[in-house]
Structures are given as structure tokens and as C-alpha cells.
């Protein structure tokens, strides 16, 4: 019996040492996973913690996350307190000094680019506010290209032998983004605008100059009352636009607003499907663009 256990442990050790040839990367979400795939390709052994329909802000820590983080060389988070409820505690509990914030093994997309919604009062009467800035940078393809370049730099620090692969991957992704952005820009010029549930797609709207006509929730993290929906209806009556909400947001209020206004209401995820690469990510942004453009 003891011999068998010993053999199993030995086998695990061998497995662990053979897989050490690549960089163990843990991405919090499919969009971050897409960047890793694009930049590192087969050099990264990638695990994505949360699926596309998850609210990364309210996610709860699971022991299995600690298991994945235990052997990671790099964690790729969206950051800016988006994952504050679970990622810091998961990283601490994973007992892996390589991925602590402040080291090479901890990467936040939001820390690599200029943020929107920075500052403002740190007053929770205004809901679940985060004065550090709006974290949802994964919705802006141009910022994502910048994040990919920064990620390539970070991966090169961890695995210098792959530096040129990483740089090439990031540049390739940036080129793809450039091509798409030009067509998206023309598609989205002159669209009437969007009502979101939460200010979670503002980076996309901001990039293409799409007006944000309003948000369903009056302040972050607090669901709307019927009266607030009526007020929003009164304000938007007669105009054109589209209502978009994500799978983890309650569909009731968006649907009733859209019915009142005679607008289309669409459920779109904040993240591309699990297993997406750069093209999958751009396809996901493309779906948002087409949906927003459909309100023209």
C-alpha cells in the first residue's frame, strides 16, 4: 500500500517536472485567457478561473481555485478591485509566493492602461463605488492591445526564452485590433446610444463615441425601483436606442424599460466564450458592435 502511494507521488512529481517546460498561467476570465493564448500560444499552460457568465465582482472563492493558483507562475487579472471579493484571499491561501501582488507573477490589466471613472467621492451612499477607476477595461479592444503588449513584456520577464514569441503575439493581436477597429468605427458612427444595466461596457462606448443614455441601476450594486425605471422611461421616451444587460443581471427591469420605450433589449455577456483566443475575443466585441449598431 505504502509502495503504491509512493509510486503515485513519484508519478505526480514527474508530471509536475515535465509540465514545467511551459509557463503556468491562471487567467481570471475568458477575455484575459484570450490575451494569454494570443500572446503566449503553446508556451503557456492556461487555466481560466471563471466562465463568461460570471459576475467577477461577486464571485466567491472556491478551494479548487487555490489548487490551480498553487502551481501558477503568473496570474492575469482584470484588476482595479473587480476581483477584490475573492482573488486576494485565493492568492494568499494558495501559499504561492510567486504570484503575490507586487511580484512578476501578478498582472492586472487595469494597471497597464488609463482608466475611466477615476476619482469621485468614496461614499457608499452612491453604491458600490471604486474611486480607483472603472475596472472593465476588457471591453475596449484598443486598451486590450496595450494590455497584450504589457503582458508580453511580463511573460518575457518570467520566461526570457520566449520573449520574441510573446512580442510577436502581442503585435499580431494589436494588428488584428487595428483592422477591426476601423470597420467598427464606421459601423458605430451616428448610433443613437445604449442603456446599460451597470457602467460595465463604458470602455467600449467610450472608444467608439457611443452615447450612454442611462443605466438601469441608479447607483452601482443597487437594483432599481419601479419608480426609477418610470423616471428613466420618461427621460428616454421618443428617442431611439437599445437596452443591453449581461447574463448575471436581472432581466426584469431592462425588459420592462425596453417594452415601455419600444426598444430592442438584448442580453450580451461581458466576456467571450470560454476557450476563446484573440479572434474569439474580437468576435465577442464584434457581437456588441453589431448589436449597438442595430439601433441605428
Amino acid at each position: 500500500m505504502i509502495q503504491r502511494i509512493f509510486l503515485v507521488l513519484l508519478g505526480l512529481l514527474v508530471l509536475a517536472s515535465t509540465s514545467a517546460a511551459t509557463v503556468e498561467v491562471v487567467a481570471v476570465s475568458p477575455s484575459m485567457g484570450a490575451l494569454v493564448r494570443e500572446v503566449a500560444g503553446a508556451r503557456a499552460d492556461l487555466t481560466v478561473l471563471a466562465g463568461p457568465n460570471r459576475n467577477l465582482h461577486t464571485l466567491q472563492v472556491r478551494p479548487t481555485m487555490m489548487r490551480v493558483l498553487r502551481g501558477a507562475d503568473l496570474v492575469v487579472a482584470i484588476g482595479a478591485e473587480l476581483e477584490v471579493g475573492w482573488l486576494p484571499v485565493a492568492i494568499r491561501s494558495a501559499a504561492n509566493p510567486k504570484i503575490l501582488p507586487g511580484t512578476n507573477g501578478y498582472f492586472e490589466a487595469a494597471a497597464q492602461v488609463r482608466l475611466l471613472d477615476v476619482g469621485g467621492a468614496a461614499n457608499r451612499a452612491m453604491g458600490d463605488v471604486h474611486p480607483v477607476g472603472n475596472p472593465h477595461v476588457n471591453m475596449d479592444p484598443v486598451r486590450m492591445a496595450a494590455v497584450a503588449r504589457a503582458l508580453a513584456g511580463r511573460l518575457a520577464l518570467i520566461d526570457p526564452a520566449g520573449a520574441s514569441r510573446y512580442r510577436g503575439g502581442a503585435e499580431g493581436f494589436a494588428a488584428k485590433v487595428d483592422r477591426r477597429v476601423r470597420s467598427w468605427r464606421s459601423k458605430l458612427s451616428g448610433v443613437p446610444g445604449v442603456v446599460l444595466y451597470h457602467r460595465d461596457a463604458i470602455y467600449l462606448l467610450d472608444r467608439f463615441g457611443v452615447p450612454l443614455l442611462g443605466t438601469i441601476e441608479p447607483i452601482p450594486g443597487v437594483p432599481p425601483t419601479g419608480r426609477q425605471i418610470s423616471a428613466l422611461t420618461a427621460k428616454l421616451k421618443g428617442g431611439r436606442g437599445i437596452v443591453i444587460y449581461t447574463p448575471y443581471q436581472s432581466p426584469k427591469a431592462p425588459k420592462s424599460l425596453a417594452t415601455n420605450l419600444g426598444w430592442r433589449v438584448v442580453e450580451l455577456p461581458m466576456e467571450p466564450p470560454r476557450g476563446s483566443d484573440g479572434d474569439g475575443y474580437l468576435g465577442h466585441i464584434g457581437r456588441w458592435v453589431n448589436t449597438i449598431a442595430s439601433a441605428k
Partner: protein
Amino acid sequence: MNKPLLQGALVGVLLIPAAAFPASDAEVAELRSMLGEMKAEYEQRTRVLENRLADAEREAARRRGEAAKSKPMTATVVRSAPTASPAKQTGGFGALTSGSAFNPQISVILDGNHYYDGIDGEGAALVGEAFQPSGGGHDHGHDHGGDEEGHGHGVTSNGFNFREAEIAFSATVDPYFDAHTYLAVDGDGNLDLEEAYLQTRGLPYGLRLKGGKFLSKFGYINQQHPHQWDFVDHNLPYLNLLGDHGLQDTGVQLTWLPDLPIYTLLGVEALHGSQEVFGATLGDAEQAELNLGDTRDGPRLWTAFAKVAPELGENHALQIGVSYAHTNQHQEVHSHSHVHEGEEEVHENGLAGNGDLWGVDIVYKYDADAAYGQGDIKFQTEYLRSIKDLSIRSSAHEELIGSPRKFTTDGLYAQATYGFAPKWTVGLRYDVLGLTNKVSGGESEEFGSSDRWTLDLTWNLSEFSRLRAQYAYSDTLVSGNERESFNAFYLQFLMSLGTHGAHVF
């Protein structure tokens, strides 16, 4: 007439250098080429600098463009970072946070309730004094040598109660340690140090060391502070076998998370052993009077635990744990009365020995993916078994001295919560103490059990505030053959101020 002389002098002066460094044509040519090289070099350097300047200008323009592209939106303010980009401030390696500079993260939790039971407010204390032959730690009226006033979480009477304000500080100390401090101030202003510990950051091989005063990782709920519970009050096995605070002690904890395909956490703790119930020791005077011996040097309490969590996909989380604790010194005093010639005489027996405690915990969470926790399910159960192996050290009945007494009491709770609507959860708990409730050894006797059904309704208004209503029906064994049944109602508020909390599984 002086003109030719002046001219001659001038020519002479002008010729001096040439005369001093007689130059050939070859030398002149060399000088020229050197000058030419220097010029070329400077020109190239200037070009490099000019290029860099142009690059910087382009970058600045690109950034300005990015900022300028943000159109005014109707919802609320959109502002950009005031000066340098965040990447510049942190080098892009850290976690962006709203936390301020070097101050520790601070949070305050306010926990108050309105309580009513049908037995004059005795019920809240009674559930922690369910009958067990060892008497638990509640030696009714005996002084443990310490001040017990206002010390418990359970000092609750009919009417309004402010249970505690929990003040938490945490920070990274340096590259080697994190540290946390939790203070509890109760309604009377008594301050209690709940936890204050360091934890290592950089040990290799998945090891972490914790030191200081902390809640043991024995079991599952033991590590949670009262505001993290899914019900207002603690469950019967913990209350009666471990006390209001559970296993909260001073010592060290070593955990090991091996890099295995299945989450497995192993840990051991060495604790001083200053316990209220399991591993309790009496005061010096009583120890002398009852011939129990002095309190031994610590550590007197040891624990070991293992947790395993299989991978079940991202909607499910399951953790199974086994825990064990051993105390090498436990003392208690049992009193009984005799009616002797018409007068009541109280006899005290002093008992001492050691104790073992076993625990099994299972926690399952289902994450339904919906808004505001709708459809989420959490199921949690623990079984505790306490075995105290004591002998009688002093008694009015001399024939009993030296006689062994083994006290075995176990308990179980099982609870489930369900998010039946956005922001609303309903919870049901059944807890029981004394499925086995017996004394064996020199004398053997078995007793009944105490149990309770609890139903609660929780309204999570936001991530930071919570209101709860709870009803419980208790059937408590108050002595060997006497039971008390009562209804108890709680209305509770929990307010969370300060930094955004994160909870361990």
C-alpha cells in the same frame, strides 16, 4: 613711421602659435578629419535625440487622443487619471486599490439585535448550557480565575442587544509577513482581542505559518467571526463543547498545501490551551483545594486537520474536512448536594485528565450565476465528538478518589441556505447536542440530548448591510432529567463599514 613696426609685431604675434606648434600640411589634414569626425558624431547624436523627442511627442499625442475621445455621457461623471497613468505609479506589478497609502485596511462590523424568548430572556444563555455529564465548562458559579463578565457573544436578554462592534485591521507588514487584528467591543464597552496574528508570505513548498492569537482552523465554522455566520447565534455543538468563542487561542499554526491535482490542505497547531470548555483549567486556589495540580506549561492544546475539495465545475464547490484536537490538561469540578440530618451539604469532586476532540465537516455551495445571489445554495454540516478522560482527584467520598471517569458528548448541526429571490435568502438549521451523552469508567450513565430547529430569513440590502429575522424552537436538557422547551426570536442587523471584505471559503 610706427606702422611697419606695428604690422611686424602683429605678424609676429600671429605667427607665434604656428611657430610654437610647427604644422605641416599633413598635420592640418589630420586635424581637419578629426574635426569632421566630431561633427558627424554630434550630428548623429542630435538625430537620435530628435527621434526620441518625436517619439515621445507622438506617444503623448496618442494618449491625449485617447483621453479626448471620451464623449460626455449622460449617466455620471467620467474622469481620467489626474497625472501619471496607474501603470507608472505602480510599475504595473501591484494590485490597483482604493486603500490609502500605508494605513492598514480597516473595517468595522456592527452587530446588534432585538431578542425575545418565552422564558424571560434566559434562552440565549440556556442553549449554551445544555446538559452534559462532564458539565461542559459551565461549572455554575465557579470562578475560573478570570473575569467572565461581558466576555461572551451570548450575553443576550429580552429586548435590544448590541452584540459587538468588530474592528479589523490588516496589512502586509513587509515582504515576509501579513498581519491581522480583530477587536470586539461589546454593548457594555468591554474590549476583547478576538484575533491578532502574523502570517508568512514567502515560505516555499506551499507552507504557511501563522502565529499569535487566532481562531483555530479546527472544523469549518470555528474560523468564522459571528457576522459571517448564516444564523444569528452559534450552533449547539460548538456552544457546548467549545464555548462562545470556539477554539480561540494563542499559538502557532502550520499549513501545507501540496501541489496535487486535488485540493488538499493539511495543518497542525500548537496552542497555549487557555480554553473555557475543552482543555479548561481552574484557578490556583481551587487547584490547591481540590488537589488538581498546577496548570502545566503550554502548549497544552494540539490540533491537526485536513481538508479536501474535489473539482466539480465552476457552479459547485465541495469541501470535506476532518479535524482532531488533543488537550493534555483538563480540569473540572462537579458539585452535588446531600441532605444530611435535615441540612443540605454541598460536596465537590475535583476531576483532572486529558481530552480528545474529533470533528468532521462538509460544506457544499452552489453558485446559480444569477443576479444578487438568487438561486444560490449553501449546505453545511459538522459533527463534533468530545471525549474527556479524567479521574477524580478529590472528593468528600474518599473511596472515589482515583476512580476514572470518561465523559463522551457529541453533537451535530446541519444547515442550508437558499437564495429564493434576489438579495433574499432563507435558512434552516437543525442542531443537536448529546446523541451520545454519557459517562463511563467508575460509574456509567447515559443521558438524553438537546436539540433545536432554527429558521431564518436574511435580506442582503447591499454588499455592506444585512437584516435578518430568526425563529428557533429549542428543546434543551437542563439537567439529567429535566427539559425546557421554548421559542426564541431574533431581529438582527449587520453593517459593514470600510474596506471591501473578502472571505475565505
